């Protein structure tokens, strides 16, 4: 399994005022908090999956979180760069 991205680079520039903000956000802290919440909620998730199983939603409830975690682990390298006339936004997962 891949390691989730540890840092998020957020670059905001305003060409009119020549202002530029570059933020390196330690998103690994968010993953740690999320993991702690998931561990705490796991008995409830399993219970919800068991209750939803007869209605056909049990598998969805049970596998949703592992699949979201899988997506998070593959965020490495995702880059979004949007430039307007007066503003530039750059987001990158490192």
């Amino acid at each position, binding site marked *: 399994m891949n390691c989730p991205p540890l840092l998020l680079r957020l670059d905001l520039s305003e060409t009119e005022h020549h202002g530029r903000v570059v933020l390196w956000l330690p998103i690994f802290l968010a993953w740690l908090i999320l993991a702690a919440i998931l561990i705490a909620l796991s008995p409830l998730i399993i219970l919800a999956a068991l209750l939803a199983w007869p209605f*056909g939603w049990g598998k969805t409830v049970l596998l949703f979180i592992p699949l979201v975690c*899988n997506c998070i*682990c593959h965020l*490495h390298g*995702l880059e*979004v*760069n*949007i*430039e*307007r006339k007066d503003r530039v936004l750059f987001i990158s997962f490192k």
Partner: protein
Amino acid sequence: MSDNQKRILDMLAWGKISADEAQKLLAAIGSGGDEPRSTGAPLRSPKYLRVVIQPNPDATKEDDVKRVNVRVPINLIRAGIKFTSLIPAEASEQVNEALKEKGINFDVRNLKPEDLEELIEALHDLEVDIQNGQEKVHVYVE
């Protein structure tokens, strides 16, 4: 065995050339024969899907120039496709109906991770260029 190699061996068998000459000729044509030879580096698996939107240089309206450059890891797309396995049958039917209303005749139940691998392989040769009055969209893999 290529035609050239066979022809050389025939000439050797008929005694038109000696064994040494046949050996030299075989070495000269190489072992590739008629098989296509690779011209460059081996084909790498694509890592990213790139979507670039640029203003059309011919466009006259320059008030709200917008450029978008998005790089999406192919592995993220792979991970996203796995979500389709979670769609319950009833929801799939609703999604299919909604797609049909929009004029897209596609069954989301047919979307499988195995098909995605084939699609990613095919992406090597794909580049999409869309150009309208204001913007130019370029989609490719790298």
